[in-house]
């Protein structure tokens, strides 16, 4: 079996001591930022970007991916113990996890979410392994028109579904695309929007943008949020083991959540948060007594946790098989590959088999590490939640400044981080989601390149985009999505005079 040969080869790559170490570092840091409310996976990945310049690409991507799925595990800890989502996708876990903790069943809740996370992740992994090579094969037939339409669909989906107003999301994506055009144009050599500043001729530094938007801006927002002053209760190990009956009650929700999360995660724009929300809604619908939900129903934590971890794994499908990231985290990871001169795209799996299969195998290892990290050592993470944020955020800011400096040894990048931090904070204050901006920034140059090539092939005739069937289908889906969100916004406006913020829903 070719699949098993490949997996075996991947395990060989992932089990190299250095890769094991980076995998551990990644999942450890992921759990850390997942547990801590206020700092997300994106901030941690941005902070680690400078490190990736100095290590081999496979190790780099293994580490960054570890942060991403590690944060999904850690996120539930703060949700259960403090009623605060450590990551956005664990917001659902608060609904029943916190009531469980108040009833003295915090240990059980933590155990169940960890196991549910593992089950979800494994389900997602199976889907990733089975489908990515097939989709990549399909992607080899793609020309520039198909890539352009696919990216357009990805951008529109990610911005209009990410929560909040669709127009705001789209505007942020377009701003990101425009920021991506800054720097020397590869085709003509013109330095665009460089204002005769030599540093800007290479474009805005990805590290500076990511750190400004998600390091500085997040810190500014959470310095004195009241959230960070709650005290969690102690969790003894003995309280974690579920009874046979309790465990039996979680199996079906875990499987449902895993299936739903795996399927949704692979779609562009549908991240772990949406998967978790939908899994919760389904459990509530199929339950015999929906009244228990919100008061500590065990299904209410196991299904969403499976779903968000499954979708965190399948989110890699479009990124690795087509080179098209579905959300900002994936975009940053592809950015890390581009830094190393590896072009993401359908050729990735066949040209860099060690990277792809090594990464996949590292998911297996990393998830097992996470279970070990999250169960016996839960006391450590609980203790961490007692540390005031004020002891940590100055360190984050210093690390941001020094980290971005380390890329080019140029203080200009630190000033850039400060300016982009102000931009990111302004976006947050005005209730724009900053994540689509990063996605646009990374996809911008690729989008432009494929648009140019497509129109060059057709001698300037734009109808080529609707004459080729795959491209036409993708564009039709984009148009439908736009029409649907426009209709939703219109109906909301006609529907009544309730304040706009209540209607914006969960982010």
């Amino acid at each position: 079996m070719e699949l098993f040969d490949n997996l075996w080869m991947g395990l060989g790559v992932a089990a190299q001591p250095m890769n094991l170490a980076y995998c551990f570092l990644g999942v450890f840091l992921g759990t850390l930022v997942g547990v801590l409310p206020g700092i997300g996976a994106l901030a941690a990945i941005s902070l680690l970007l400078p490190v990736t310049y100095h290590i081999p690409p496979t190790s780099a991507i293994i580490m960054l991916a570890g942060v991403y799925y590690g944060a999904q595990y850690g996120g539930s800890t703060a949700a259960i113990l403090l009623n605060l989502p450590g990551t956005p996708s664990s917001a659902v876990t608060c609904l029943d996890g916190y009531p469980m903790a108040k009833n003295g069943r915090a240990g059980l809740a933590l155990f169940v979410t960890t196991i549910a996370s593992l089950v979800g992740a494994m389900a997602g992994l199976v889907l990733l392994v089975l489908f990515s090579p097939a989709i990549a094969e399909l992607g080899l037939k793609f020309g520039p028109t198909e890539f352009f339409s696919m990216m357009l669909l990805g951008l529109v989906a990610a911005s209009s579904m990410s929560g909040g107003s669709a127009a705001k999301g789209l505007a942020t994506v377009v701003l990101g695309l425009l920021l991506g055009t800054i720097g020397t144009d590869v085709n003509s050599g013109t330095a665009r929007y460089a204002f005769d500043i030599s540093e800007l001729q290479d474009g805005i530094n990805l590290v500076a943008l990511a750190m400004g938007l998600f390091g500085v801006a997040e810190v500014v927002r959470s310095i004195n949020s009241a959230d960070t002053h709650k005290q969690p209760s102690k969790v003894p190990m003995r309280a974690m083991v579920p009874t046979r009956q309790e465990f039996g009650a979680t199996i079906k929700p875990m499987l449902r959540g895993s299936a739903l999360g795996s399927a949704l995660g692979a779609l562009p724009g549908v991240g772990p948060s949406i998967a978790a929300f939908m899994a919760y809604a389904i459990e509530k619908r199929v339950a015999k007594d929906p009244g228990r939900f919100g008061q500590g129903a065990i299904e209410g934590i196991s299904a969403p946790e499976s779903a968000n971890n499954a979708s965190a794994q399948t989110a890699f499908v479009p990124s690795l098989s087509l080179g098209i990231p579905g959300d900002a985290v994936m975009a940053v990871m592809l950015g890390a590959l581009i830094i190393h001169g590896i072009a993401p795209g359908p050729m990735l799996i066949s040209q860099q088999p060690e990277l792809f299969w090594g990464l996949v195998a590292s998911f297996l290892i990393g998830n097992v590490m996470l279970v070990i990290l999250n169960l016996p050592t839960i006391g450590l993470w609980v203790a961490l939640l007692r540390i005031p944020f004020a002891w940590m955020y100055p360190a984050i800011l210093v690390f941001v400044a020094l980290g971005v400096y380390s890329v080019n040894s140029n203080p200009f990048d630190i000033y850039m981080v400060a300016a982009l931090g102000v931009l990111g904070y302004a976006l947050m204050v005005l209730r724009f989601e900053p994540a689509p901006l990063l996605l646009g920034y990374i996809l911008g140059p690729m989008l432009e390149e494929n648009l140019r090539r497509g129109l060059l092939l057709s001698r300037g005739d734009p109808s080529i985009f609707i004459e080729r069937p795959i491209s036409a289908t993708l564009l039709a889906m984009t148009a439908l999505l736009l029409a649907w969100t426009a209709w939703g916004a219109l109906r909301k406006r006609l529907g009544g005079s309730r304040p706009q913020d209540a209607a914006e829903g969960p982010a």
Partner: protein
Amino acid sequence: MTTRDIHGLLGGLGMAGAGAFFAIYGSQYTMGTAARMGAGFFPAILGWILVALGLLIALPACWRRGEAVVVQWSNLIWSVLGVVAFAAMLKAVGVVVASFATCLITLMPARMALRLRLLVSAVIAGLTTLTFVIGLRMTLPIWPWQA
């Protein structure tokens, strides 16, 4: 406290302004034709799309109610100032002093006793030096007299 939807209004106008800037400033670059695009083609299209989207956000916000905008000015100013100070000081006085000073600056909005402030800053300065200069071997001056 409800007023007009300032978030949408300011944000939309800001976006439209940014779009107009990119489109107009970008008009100095060659446009080219659709078949052979110049450097200015793509940003110009995007710029005008952003103007349209910005207006689409701002106009409905004029007659919709919303909440007042809350800006944590002191957090913003001190954090950004800390980062800028770090950039200015790094090569002049070395990592230890620069990170210590940055921590003190960024801690301004936090409620904390002076001794604890100094302690937290000193620990962070030490950790930073250990991780970056000694651990990751970045070539940077550690103390002011090495700068």
